[in-house]
């Protein structure tokens, strides 16, 4: 299936951290999220291939994770909040049924006074 693009996932994390404020993180992976019931025009069933797990960690500590099923739209988009103690690196990971793993990372620094 050629609909799996080579485009990497997109992540939006603010560049600077304001102490006492939660950080809004927006993520989007480019993936068709095939349910396994769709048929092509030749009558061939397209094999099931979904992103089943998403995880977000900050300096190795877990922030947020999700188990996704067929009910999640193609190109899964998610927003959530993180409450982090200081500067560091967010690591994002998407795992698909066909074994593909997509990763992304974003750095956040303390706001300059």
């Amino acid at each position, binding site marked *: 299936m050629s609909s799996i693009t080579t485009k990497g996932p997109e992540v939006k994390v603010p560049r600077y951290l304001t102490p006492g404020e*939660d*950080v809004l993180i927006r993520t989007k992976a480019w993936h068709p999220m095939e*349910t396994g*019931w*769709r048929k092509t025009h030749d009558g061939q069933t397209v094999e099931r291939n979904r992103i089943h797990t998403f995880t977000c*960690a*900050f300096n190795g*500590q*877990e*922030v*947020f*994770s*999700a*188990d*996704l*099923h*067929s*009910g*999640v*739209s*193609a190109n*899964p*988009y*998610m*927003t*959530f*909040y*993180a*409450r*982090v103690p200081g500067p560091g690196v967010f690591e994002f990971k998407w795992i698909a049924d066909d074994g593909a793993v997509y990763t992304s990372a974003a750095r956040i620094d303390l706001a300059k006074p």
Partner: protein
Amino acid sequence: MTHLELSEVLLSRRQVLAGGGAAALLASLAGLAPLPAHAEPADAEAKLAELTGGVTLQKGRISIEVPPYTEYGKQVRISIEVESPMTDADRVKTIHVLAERNTVPEVASYHFGPLAGQARISTRIRVATTQILLVAAEMASGEIYLAKTRVKVARGGGGCG
């Protein structure tokens, strides 16, 4: 080629009707079985009980924002907020989203780790037909809250889960 008696070849009107009826019934049964039919609300409730471990579900604390009417079921934006300070003592552990009449009622489960901020997420889901969405929030204290919302869909999610 073997010779056939006339009585073997010609069926009576009654036999034809009976045979035809049986064939039609068989065909309809065979046709029904492999289709990914929409699930029933009971399936979603059973799944929810499996996910939550049979704890009594309480009302309140969850607010769901979803368009009440949508033209296109493949991308329905949904935002969920659970009232919680997200301190160590009082925090949300997991949010489950289920769609009663999707082929697979389970939509997603979101787990909040120790560094999670507000118990607030937004995402896009597939909604097969007009139906009720269930959102359950598991708290660290073991309480589970349940909220329901209705989504009306003009065109479904296209064989979606």
